[in-house]
């Protein structure tokens, strides 16, 4: 009888802790920005060793924040398109800010040294920052790479205007007929509403 009591007790503890784990993971996934939220600024190290914050960009009208990395084939597939976005919009006031959110212990390819190498190889025209300590990406709610947040600078702060994919064809840029980020920034530049505000895409899970 005593063993039964102990067993029931143990089962109860397991059940309660399982529930607690569920709760924690739920609240974790619930976090992150949605359209209209104010995105926080950060101070992260760039591949050129300088520290970059959004507030440094006095003339910017907004930002194309891209969570990306070295190791993910989807990120690699989009590299040229990220460079093209920066070329297209930096002068118009929407520079690209790339952030690598990964833990380099999980993915050695995503280490700061390898970020420097990749940025040089590809000729990144935009800052490529390391989310050192992995504190920024969970607050944005980025889950995978690449994952884009288009922010509009306003008196109240940087408002989230678009969250999601760059376009609707990761394999072939020429076949993408919905260019979500481009359309979002163009709409914001014209003072119009962003046509598609949230999209989903396959990407590499960010490893904590």
């Amino acid at each position: 009888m005593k063993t039964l009591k102990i067993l029931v007790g143990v089962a109860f503890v397991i059940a309660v802790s399982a529930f607690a784990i569920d709760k924690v993971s739920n609240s974790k996934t619930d976090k992150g920005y949605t359209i209209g939220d104010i995105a926080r600024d950060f101070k992260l190290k760039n591949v050129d060793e300088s520290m970059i914050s959004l507030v440094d960009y006095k003339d910017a009208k907004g930002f194309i924040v891209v969570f990306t990395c070295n190791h993910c084939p989807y990120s690699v597939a989009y590299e040229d398109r990220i460079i093209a976005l920066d070329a297209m919009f930096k002068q118009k006031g929407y520079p690209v800010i790339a952030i690598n959110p990964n833990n380099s212990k999980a993915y050695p390819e995503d280490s700061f040294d390898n970020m420097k190498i990749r940025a040089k190889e590809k000729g990144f025209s935009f800052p490529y920052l390391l989310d050192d300590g992995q504190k920024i990406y969970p607050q944005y709610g980025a889950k995978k790479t690449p994952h884009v947040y288009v922010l509009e600078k306003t008196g109240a702060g940087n408002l989230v205007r678009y969250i999601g994919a760059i376009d609707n064809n990761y394999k072939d840029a020429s076949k993408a007929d919905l260019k979500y980020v481009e359309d979002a920034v163009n709409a914001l530049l014209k003072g119009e509403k962003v046509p598609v505000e949230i999209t989903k895409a396959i990407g590499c899970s960010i490893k904590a």
Partner: protein
Amino acid sequence: MLRFFIYITPLLFFVNCKGEQTVALDATDVFESKGVEIPVYDFESFKPLLTINDGKTRIINFWATWCKPCIVELPYFELINSRYPDDKVEVILVSLDLPSQVESRLIPFVKKQKIKSKIILLDDPDANNWIPKVNSNWSGSIPATIIYKNGTINFYERSFTYNELEKELKKVL
């Protein structure tokens, strides 16, 4: 005696249903190399696999060779596949590798790891269109897994240990 009936009833039901429903999936292409065959589907041709109503439990795991947590949990799916009879549980590993990497990465991986579960390639670049059709809660990150039997469908955007996976399987089995 009662216990015997509880076990035997679903089995009979299954046998009765067997053959009444055949779901044919039409692959859009097939990769074949080194004795490994991997059929390719776009989402339209893949979709029927998510709603087969034949009493069998299906575990559908979305993964890719470049996805580290996917590779870590793959042996657990293989173990489930080998431990449960084919007519009760079917494991389907849906690779999201880029088609350009099937011959260079996916097939060598499958061969090296001697993967026995069924592997198919889902090649549909308009992910924003089909991700919500798999499950409205899915952000698109992998690993992601569906465990379903008939109308009971559970979706998981997470990694599993063997025990966690088996526990979830038993919920629908």
